[in-house]
């Protein structure tokens, strides 16, 4: 058995004591007990979970300009969870939400890749469906990183409006696998989405993570047009997770024409596939 050394626990203890003296004992209930001081303190200490927790506790507090500026900077934090929580914080403040939205739209149009990424994450929380065109334009902007464009796609999904469908369909043909995968996942978040036709072609994408995502999404809707591709993939794709997802999708589609392919998959060498294929067989009409 290993024992940890003494030095680190003492260091932790000293930090704990200092923080306890500084912070006091907050209410444990969600949404209450926060303050700008606590947000600042958590940010200085660096743990994203702690920063997020303090933002959540301070959801309703009014803010001085110093406070506002500080939280605005959290919209550019390295941690996605912090950026998301900071944007949520502004989403609770209608007037500031307008300001954040305007700033984000400016960045989408002319910001660096990092700025576009952060702007997209902010709009995912504060954005109204009317910003869909600007997000679509950012996805198509040349010179931006794949990450930035993928986050713009993600934002479309989080806003969830049907008007995003054309942009998402276009993103599914993007040269970046990251963008294509994000577009597939965003497709499922669109409210009152029906069908997954644009996703079907990606069942045989060159990238394994795209194929995994595509197979599971065409099963969610379920897209009968994908059946033939899925029947090929379920027995021949080199990736067991793709084969598993394809089996799932075929069960959801339920066409008895898939019986032979699923029967073969039920004896797959991978433990990820077999039970899913057998379950899918039970669901065939």
């Amino acid at each position, binding site marked *: *058995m290993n*024992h*940890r050394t003494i030095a*680190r*626990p003492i*260091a*932790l*203890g000293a*930090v704990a004591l200092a*923080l*306890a003296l500084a912070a006091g*004992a*907050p209410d*444990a*209930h*969600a*949404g209450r007990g926060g303050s700008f001081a606590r947000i600042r303190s*958590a940010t200085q*200490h660096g*743990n994203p*979970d*702690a920063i*997020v*927790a303090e933002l*959540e506790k301070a959801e309703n*507090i*009014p*803010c*001085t*300009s110093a406070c506002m500026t500080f939280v605005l900077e959290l919209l550019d934090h390295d*941690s996605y*969870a912090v950026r998301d*929580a900071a944007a*949520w914080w502004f*989403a609770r*403040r*209608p*007037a500031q939400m307008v300001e954040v939205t305007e700033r984000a739209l400016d960045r989408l149009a002319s910001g660096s890749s990092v700025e576009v990424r952060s702007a997209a994450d902010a709009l995912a*929380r504060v954005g109204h*469906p009317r910003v869909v065109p600007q997000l679509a334009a950012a996805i198509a902007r040349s010179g931006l990183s794949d990450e930035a464009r993928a986050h713009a796609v993600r934002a479309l999904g989080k806003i*969830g*409006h049907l008007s995003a469908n054309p942009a998402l369909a276009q993103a599914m043909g993007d040269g970046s696998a990251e963008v294509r995968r994000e577009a597939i996942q965003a497709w*499922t*978040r669109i*409210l*009152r989405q029906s069908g997954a036709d644009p996703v079907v072609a990606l069942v045989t994408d060159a990238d394994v*993570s795209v194929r995994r995502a595509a*197979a599971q999404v065409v*099963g969610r809707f379920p897209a009968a047009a994908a059946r033939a591709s899925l029947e090929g993939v379920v027995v021949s794709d080199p990736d067991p*997770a793709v084969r*598993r997802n394809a089996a*799932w999708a075929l*069960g959801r589609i339920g066409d008895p024409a898939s019986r032979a392919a699923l029967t073969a998959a039920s004896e797959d060498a991978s*433990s*990820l596939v077999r*039970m*899913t294929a*057998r*379950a899918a067989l*039970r669901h065939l009409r």
Partner: protein
Amino acid sequence: MTALAAAVVSAAAGCGGKEQGTGPLDEVDAIVFIERAARMDGLGDIFQYESYVPGARLMKLSPPTADGTVTELCCGDLPEYEGADIIDYDLSFDARSIVFSARLSEDQRYGLFLLDLESGGVEQLPTDPDADFVYPTFLPGDRVLFATNAVVEEGAPQFEDEYERRTTLQLGSVAVDGSDLQLYSRNLSHRITSTVMSTGEVLFTQWDHLDELNAGQLLRMNPDGTRVREAFGKEGTGITNSYYKAIEAAPGRVIAIGSSRDRTFQSGAILDIRLGETHEVGGELWADIEMSEKNASTRILTAQVPLDDEASFESVGRYYNAYPLNSKDYPDLLVSWADGPVQSDVNGAAGVAPDFGLYLFDSKNGTRLPVYDKKGTWEINPIPLTPRTAPPEISPAGTNGVDDDAVLIGAMNVYSTSLGDFEDGAVWGVRVIEGFSGEEGVGDDFGLSEAEGAATLGVAEVREDGSWAALVPANVPVHQIAVDKYDVGLRVEPVWITGRPGESRFCGGCHESRSATTVIEPGITDAIAIGPQDLMSRVPRFERVTTEPTRPVGIPWDTALQPIFDNKCAMSGCHDGVAGAANKSFTITDPESGQSQEFIFNLTGDPIDFAFGEAMLSGYSASHLSLLGAAMLELEELDLVITGDMPTYVLPGDARNSLLFGVLNPPRQFPEPDLDDRLFPDLPDHSVEMGFPLTAEEFRLLVEMADNGGQFYSRENAPGLQP
């Protein structure tokens, strides 16, 4: 093993052979646990489940001592599982198999896997690969219970928790052969970490968010997801914010972790929770007599561990799990524990993750003996590898006999209540309100109040014998408000209830006594004899909106209420935001700078962008801020002083005590509107006095807005649902 460890271990009872005396692990040949990569974030609150760091394994320690042999049960030798992270598992009753929840790569979700302990073979259970399936629990009858973010309602978005913004987990089950996967009805927020009790019932943790209430309570249900009811945490029994990872120690008695909702790495104090009255059985302490919230109690087994989100201390730390090894008054526990602050802020400042390891905990003396702790990884979820008696299977409850697709709700006698008496005949009906959250195109805020989304499904009439009955959509969380003939709430039931298709959720009364029986006349209730009222039970989700002015469903502030204010209240010279006798005001003053700003009562739809000094306030529209008031803004945080005579006109969730209706005086609504019959017989109606009388329909909108939570947004004006 270091010499220090050996010395400690040799002092432990049972180490090195049974001839050294008895100990709680003496009859245990091995324990199973998860070895998981340590982490600094991703476990910010107890409901977070998506954390992924590759490298987890299922391990066995045999014998369960520090000099035992550690072997890997799963799954490092299988290429598909190389990158697995494991969040939880359960051991079958016969101790021959394990069901575990694992995520195999960053781009996959948590799924369920079955491990055969004899052969070592693993199979993935067939679940939706586009959803997470976590916290598996074996049920009697060869089934597995789980928590998942898959949605039971086809085409509907899963609820998103209002604070931590994640897709919520709900419960479901599947047969161990992968067949018959069922998703249960939904709570408005998370349901997690379940355990099956010796009665066959399931105990689980539910996050309750309804207006100001925010806590993780313990609830009970049948293993098929029906008959959900409170077990512990409400009715004044609670001692901290959340209770989770409960494991039964004896009938009616569970060992659970108690903590704040967040910042403690999903760990906390160990609580011995008694769900009913206690009694001794053969040296064991049981608590299965009259199990109800009223009779529930708790004993804190780790008194020094903070129950809030503050840092813990050296040699106190926090507990990730606690598994009861016996049922003594002070049970012995197999625990996962980490020393030090175990708090995200402090650990973050030091850059050091907590180190959870396995210990034997003597709850009587408060001592811990080390069992196994590997530096750099977390050893969590220890369970003795021993068979246990399977609880009895509880047969599915019969259907409600009225509708196999809807849920029958109601009460035998609404006047049977533990919350103070109703005047005889005062309750005209029960307003049933559907709840939803921002996932329905609203975004992250419904308005200045704490209320979530609301859609009134209808008002079910209370019959002569005090009964009422209604059919509501299955799998949809609803809450209820008893209303009088003026449609003003008499009492709000502050819990969401939900049922599976065909289920009956019939109460005795209106928050009736938890320990007494509701007595009614023999025979069926009038409400059932007449037939339950259909409250949109067949109406699809996105069509549950207002289509007739006389039957409001959602009440969008800008399109349903603002026209009333514009036409009857906010005209020039009236409530238009101009200082005068018609418009009270409040002034916010910063004592430090001396700056101040005045806000004047204003029922126009103008947007609010209210700044004074350096502070900025937002209130949606002027009318929304004027009615819900500055009290919603938590101005005390800035040490500001509020003066003036503008009161709060609308109390969200409480129309009866809202000043607005003392001024306007609502008319009768049921059974038919009557403008000559008023809630307050001796008070005037301000709208009549001013010559712009409100109609009965307009009154109904205002009253229901207040009772339902004072939201600005509803489905009708949700931005994401507009064309």
